[in-house]
């Protein structure tokens, strides 16, 4: 196997039992994502993209098949090992931001470091501040989530995902709660981080968002029906500049 593969999924299935019915949320997925890629996972609701997201995010275990994250086999790991993997290898960004309320931006960003048992010490407060600076919120460290705009909140969530220096940034509908301009801002940040070498996988149902990725994977009925590189890739920062000009 290629050591540069961050995700390596083979024959992955996930079956839910609802009463007497069996629901095949994932019916046999093969997917490899290499380091430095930026992948958009698309699909209608019920296509299985959320389930795939949970699998990649080590939140759920496959019914069959294999999943290697950063060269480590994930299937069959216990809850504690999964938690450690999430902490060390993954950074999550959610649609609803999922920040702790009444908790300052800096404290939110510090949170993953509190659960880090790998002993990669360091001053968690200054690491959190650096992560916030990286997303352009260096001057908002003491603000509470309800004092920040939606875009700023999402950037705090991105800083929280980055603070552990993960192998993979996993975003679930990251722009679902944001207006167009803020969405493009977030995508510009993703592209910038991706250019710095971070692997990004994001789930979205919006084509305009997906075209900022390097590769699009489309799911239907628990199967991958399309897996193509993006030829006319958008440049979010440039688009943002145009929007600003138009507004001015």
């Amino acid at each position, binding site marked *: 196997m290629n050591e540069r593969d961050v995700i390596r999924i083979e024959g992955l299935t996930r079956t839910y039992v609802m009463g007497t019915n069996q629901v095949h949320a994932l019916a046999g997925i093969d997917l490899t994502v290499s380091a430095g890629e930026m992948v958009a996972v698309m699909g209608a609701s019920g296509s299985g993209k959320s389930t795939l997201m949970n699998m990649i995010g080590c939140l759920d275990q496959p019914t069959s098949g294999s999943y290697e994250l950063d060269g480590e086999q994930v299937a069959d790991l216990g809850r504690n090992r999964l*938690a450690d993997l999430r902490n060390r290898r993954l950074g999550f960004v959610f649609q609803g931001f*999922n920040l702790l309320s009444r908790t300052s931006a800096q404290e939110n960003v510090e949170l993953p470091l*509190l659960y880090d048992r790998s002993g990669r010490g360091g001053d968690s407060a200054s690491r959190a501040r650096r992560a916030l600076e990286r997303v352009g919120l260096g001057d908002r460290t003491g603000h509470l989530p309800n004092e920040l705009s939606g875009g700023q909140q999402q950037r705090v969530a991105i800083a929280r995902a980055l603070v552990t220096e993960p192998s993979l940034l996993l975003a679930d509908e990251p722009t679902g709660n944001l207006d167009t301009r803020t969405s493009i801002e977030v995508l510009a940040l993703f592209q910038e981080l991706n250019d710095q070498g971070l692997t990004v996988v994001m789930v979205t149902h919006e084509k305009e968002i997906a075209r900022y990725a390097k590769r699009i994977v489309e799911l239907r009925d628990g199967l991958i029906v399309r897996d193509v590189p993006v030829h006319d890739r958008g440049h979010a920062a440039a688009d943002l500049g145009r929007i600003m000009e138009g507004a001015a």
Partner: protein
Amino acid sequence: MRPDKLIRIAMRSIARTKMRSMLTALGIIIGVGAVIVMVAIGHGAKSRIEQSIQNLGTNMVVITPGTSASGGVSRGAGSFNRLTTDDAEKLQRESMLLSEVTPVIMTFSRVRGGGGNWRAPIYGVAPNFQDIRDWGMASGQFIGAADLRARRKVCVLGATVAENLFPEQDPVGQEVILRGVPFDVIGVLEDKGQTADGSDQDDMVIAPWTTIQDRLAGRQFIAQILGSAWSPDDVEAAMDEAAAIMRESHELGDWEEDDFTVRNQADLAEAATGTTEVMTLLLAAIAGISLLVGGIGIMNIMLVSVTERTREIGIRMAIGARPGDVLTQFLVEAVVLSVLGGLLGVGLGYAGSWVVDYLTGWPTVIDATTVALALGFSASVGIFFGFWPARKAAALSPIDALRFE
């Protein structure tokens, strides 16, 4: 996870909801406060009793009629009694270990004098009563040996009697009438306050026992004999010796039980403090129940909190919290809450005890053991009642928790 991180996480969660945390801990605060105040009152009562028994004089030996353990044998009415002035004289003569012995004859009478009227116990004693009880004079003098021999009609008033009959003047030199017999007041005793059981020691009149026997009580048997050992170390031996002399005086055979009881102050103290210990325990138990109720309050809020914070639990799990971390976090929150409550409760207990002391004049005593026990108990309450909610939180699946609205 490191304990300092854990406590930091818990403290942050508690600080986020200050008002609710305060209300949650209120049960524990009140519970611990109540335990400390109750035990402080109990200990205060006990120390007061011990002190008032100390007031009697440490070397004192008390002989009372009747056996302490009658062994199921009932002595019928008119059976041979018990204490006489002859016993007291024999003890005074023969005892090597008792320095002083006095009979105490007790009767009740109306005391008339100074235009007033007062009903009080009358004690007929020997002059050495004053040394045995270690009782000073407020004015005048105590009855003397000559008064006893000559059966003089002289008396000494307790402070209460003196105050009631002669509020405006010194009673010494005045006359009081006991059952129609006039007595000259030759002295007033120092104020000694209440005894352990709350009776007023100063409410009495003292006269020579010879006079009382002649004029008031007749040749009846005496209430008790008081003796005083040479030193506190002699008390135990003196009691044995007194018992032997008493048996001889009563001509008891080897097979016969004592028809008298010899006690010292330790015995008296034990009997008196035994009651307060039971009382203290009872008060503490009632207060302890309120602590338990406080614990249930914490469990209640923690359960609500777990449901309310399901999403937070999901976030924590998604970013790498192990189930054990979540369990520990909630457990530590419960313990921190209850220990903080406990600490505030200790403060409340001190304040409450001071208020009780200030308002009622009951002395209160707070000892370190009670405080430590109350704090330890409140921490255990936190662990015990925090465990179930914490386990519920840890068992959540991260996917379901994240999806929770």
